[in-house]
C-alpha cells in the first residue's frame, strides 16, 4: 500500500445544496431511462429476429401491469428529458444570429419544444395512418 494518501474531497450529497444542481442531476439521470428504453427495444428486435413465438412473448410482457406502470414512468421521464434538452440548448449550441441580432435563449427553447410537439404529432399521425 502506498504511504501517500492524498486528500480527496468527499462528493456525497453536494448536489442537494442547490436547486440548480438538483435540476442538473435529474437532467443527467434521464439518460438511465433513455438507456432502459433502448434495451426494451433491443429485446424486441432480438425477439423479432427469433421468430413469431419469441415476438409474441415480448408483446405479452409489454401488456403486463408492471410493464405498463414502468412505461408510464418512462414516459414522464422522457417528457422531462425533452423539456430539459431544449432548456439547455441555448447553452449547448453556438450563438445564433438572425438579421444581426442574437436569438434569445427563450426563443431557442420554445422553438425546440415546438419542434418536439410537432415531431410527436407527426409520429402519431404516421402510426395512425399505418394502423391495420
Amino acid at each position, binding site marked *: 500500500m502506498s504511504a501517500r494518501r492524498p486528500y480527496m474531497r468527499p462528493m456525497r450529497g453536494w448536489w442537494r445544496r442547490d436547486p440548480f444542481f438538483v435540476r442538473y442531476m435529474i437532467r443527467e439521470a434521464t439518460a438511465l431511462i*433513455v438507456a432502459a428504453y*433502448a434495451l426494451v427495444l433491443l429485446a424486441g428486435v432480438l425477439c423479432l429476429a427469433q421468430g413469431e413465438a419469441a*415476438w409474441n412473448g415480448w408483446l405479452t410482457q409489454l401488456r403486463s401491469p408492471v410493464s405498463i406502470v414502468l412505461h408510464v414512468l418512462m414516459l414522464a421521464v*422522457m417528457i422531462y428529458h425533452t423539456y430539459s*434538452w431544449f432548456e439547455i440548448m441555448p447553452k449547448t449550441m453556438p450563438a445564433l444570429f438572425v438579421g444581426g441580432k442574437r436569438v434569445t435563449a427563450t426563443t431557442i427553447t420554445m422553438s425546440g419544444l415546438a419542434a418536439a410537439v410537432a415531431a410527436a404529432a407527426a409520429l402519431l399521425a404516421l402510426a395512425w395512418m399505418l394502423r*391495420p
Partner: protein
Amino acid sequence: MKRSNAPVFWGLFGAGGMLSALLGPMLVFITGIAVPLGLVLPRDFMSYPRMLAFAQHWAGKSFVFAVIALFIWHAAHRIFHSLHDVGIRTGAVAKLIFYGAALLVTLLTLRALLVIGF
C-alpha cells in the same frame, strides 16, 4: 498532436439526445402504453407479420437501428460523464465499459436486423 476522439462521442451523444427529445416520449407511449392497452392504436398494430414487414423494409430497418443505437450512445456518454458527479473516479477502463456496452448494443441490433432480412 494526437487527435481527440471526443467529438465522435459528443456527436453521437448530441444526435441521440436530439432524436430522443423529439421522438422518445411518443415512442414510449406508442410501444409501451397505447398498443399494449389498445388505446388510440389497435392492439394488433405491432403484430408479428406487420412488425416483420416493417423491420424488413429499408426505411423501417434504418429507423429501428437509428433509434436503438443513438439512444444507447447518448445514454452511455451521459452516464459515463455523470460518474464523476456522484464521486466515482473514472479512467480508461470505465470509458471502455460504457462505450463498449453501447457498441455491443449497436452490434446486437445490427445483427438482429440483418437476421430479419430484407
